[in-house]
């Protein structure tokens, strides 16, 4: 049976060997990380963004590279997912975008700070993370894959393309928070739409639909676009129809 001194040798020897291996791998990683992370693309704006990220402990709710807390969304690919215009609007007043929902602290960032944060997150989005976050493997099986055949109409206005699609889908592409809008013209009149978009809370208090600041021209442009959509909502996305009952 093993003696105590042999056991000690095992402990000391193992520790030395594996520490050495770990240090060697660390050295090699440090050589490779600049290329994997595009270290040369770390601009002063990215560095400032990282400081803002840390100074406000964003990791205390969000995750980045999958690290952090699990109270708010993963942000590694957020610039790709939401787009810069949406993020700018959101960071100006986070609670306004999700009224009545889980709250983000109102940091009151100025324009320059918002740009820095976005620059940092954009840099993070381009780091080679060995495939993380993976594309959801079952997404195709549970969501209706729709061609854009459903909705034909005018091209999407800038504001719609960058902001509204975060929650609403058109032609099967977009968010699932609000209803799809392919056939909205069958349900709502022009006046309805104008009033609703201009101030959702006044029509339905407590709705998660935010009030987005826009000019009269932008509002008209969006409503024109919605009225031009001639699609029907794909079956799997549409709310279930009430079943006929026996009389």
């Amino acid at each position, binding site marked *: 049976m093993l003696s105590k001194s042999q*056991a000690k040798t*095992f402990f000391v020897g193992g520790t030395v060997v594996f520490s050495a291996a770990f240090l060697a791998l660390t050295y090699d990683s440090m050589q490779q990380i600049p290329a994997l992370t595009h270290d040369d693309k*770390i601009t002063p704006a990215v560095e400032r963004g990282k400081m803002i990220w840390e100074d406000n402990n964003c990791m205390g*709710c969000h995750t980045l590279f999958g690290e952090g807390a*699990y109270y708010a969304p993963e942000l590694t690919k957020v610039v790709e997912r939401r787009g810069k215009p949406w993020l700018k609007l959101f960071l100006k007043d986070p609670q306004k975008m999700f009224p009545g929902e889980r709250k983000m*602290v109102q940091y009151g960032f100025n324009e320059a700070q918002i740009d820095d944060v976005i620059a*940092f997150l954009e840099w993070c989005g381009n780091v080679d993370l060995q495939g993380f976050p993976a594309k959801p493997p*079952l*997404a195709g099986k549970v969501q209706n894959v729709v061609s854009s055949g459903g909705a034909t109409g005018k091209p999407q206005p800038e504001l719609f393309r960058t902001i509204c699609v975060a929650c609403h889908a058109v032609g099967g592409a977009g968010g699932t928070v609000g209803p799809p809008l392919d056939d909205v013209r069958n349900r709502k009149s022009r006046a309805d739409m104008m009033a609703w978009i201009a101030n959702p809370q006044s029509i339905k208090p407590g709705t998660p639909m935010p009030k987005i600041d826009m000019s009269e021209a932008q509002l008209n442009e969006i409503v024109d676009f919605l009225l031009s959509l001639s699609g029907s909502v794909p079956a799997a996305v549409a709310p279930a129809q009430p079943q006929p009952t026996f009389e």
Partner: protein
Amino acid sequence: MKYQSQKIAYWFFAAAMVLFSLQIVYGFIMGFARIGYDVLHDWIPFNTARAVHTNLLVVWLLCGFMGAAYYIIPEEVERDLEWPKLAWLQYFSLLIDGVIAVGCYHFNIWEGRKFLEIPRPLDYLVVVNVLMFIANIGVTMWKGKRSTTTSMVLFMGLLFAALLYLPGMVQVRNQTVDSFYRWWVVHLWVEGVWELIMGGMLCYLLIKLTGVDREVVEKWLYLIVGLTFLSGILGTGHHYYYIGTPRYWLIVGGVFSALEPLAFLGMAIYALAMAKRGERKHPNRIALTWSLGCAVMSFVGAGFLGMAHTLPQVNMYTHGTLVTAMHGHLAFWGAYAMIVLAMIAYALPLMTGRKLWDTPLASWAFWTSNIGMLGMTGALAVAGITQVNLERRMGLDFMLVQKEIQVHFIGMLLAAALFTVGIGMFIVMFFRHGLPNDEALGTDVAGDLVAVGK
């Protein structure tokens, strides 16, 4: 208790109890926020509550480790602490540092890196503080009458923990490099050198409580901490899968973290075997219960549940979800909280001379807190697995999924209430012992039996 200077341990343990209670309060704040009652949002937003919750955990565990060292080392090396007054200075400065840090979090002042939120200037105070502690313990051992494996392992754990704090203080511009060295502190602490501390404490308790020959107990201690480092050092790789590091970490991290449960399994078998082999029936049964509970629960929480999501193929989908929180809760409870509570349960009667072992309340505290913690882990597991499936596998929106799993946090809160009752009973027991006193001196190494009046 044999030496005057061991009394300081009591105050570290008392501080640990207070900080632990506060940690639980902040846990409840987060739990309620998750079911929609974030009424404190304007004063204590989630990121503040989270930073306070995890930092208080670390500070109270460190208080427990330091108290344990101040108690164990004099007894092992057979002399008083070298500088008892320095120990007091270290005690107060640690608490002041901790209170300032926690206060800062309420005013949006921090370093903002997961688990290392302490504002940078306070980091330097921590370093000075730990130097005082290490120096005091180190010199006491140096001048001691004998040198034991138990005390050496404990000291090495504490020393390496202090050294590994340093890489976490370096400021870098690249987020990947930042994360890389942050894990040197976080991972190499909890899955490396803290296990040395835990092993040293467990070994000491087993020698005292079971009466098995020191040579035998210490030989196995070497093997187990050997296994810990063998798997744990390269096991750091499981944090380097998806943060912008080279691909080989998927293999290195995967293989070595698959070995990590072995160390914990070894620890559990070792503790149970020693307890069975021991002939001495020490009257402090509850301390033995906590010690064995610690060995078993650390295997379940740290070893088994860690293994459950450490393979790269699994971790791709569980990384950054509540599955991590599930593992974290039982791992910290089993491995570190329980060893500190075991040490307290053992040392308190000897420091105060009040033989309050084997009371019904003490048993209730053990079982209630453990069942509560298992319930919390279960609730987090269901929430975590649902989140993985809906969000990561099916691609549903984050907030939509959060609403789906909200109900599990009601279960979590109920289990947490049970846990709190258990810890409440433990704390009542703690203060019933009264203060350490000179009459308790003389319950020496050869006989904890003296304390029993035999």
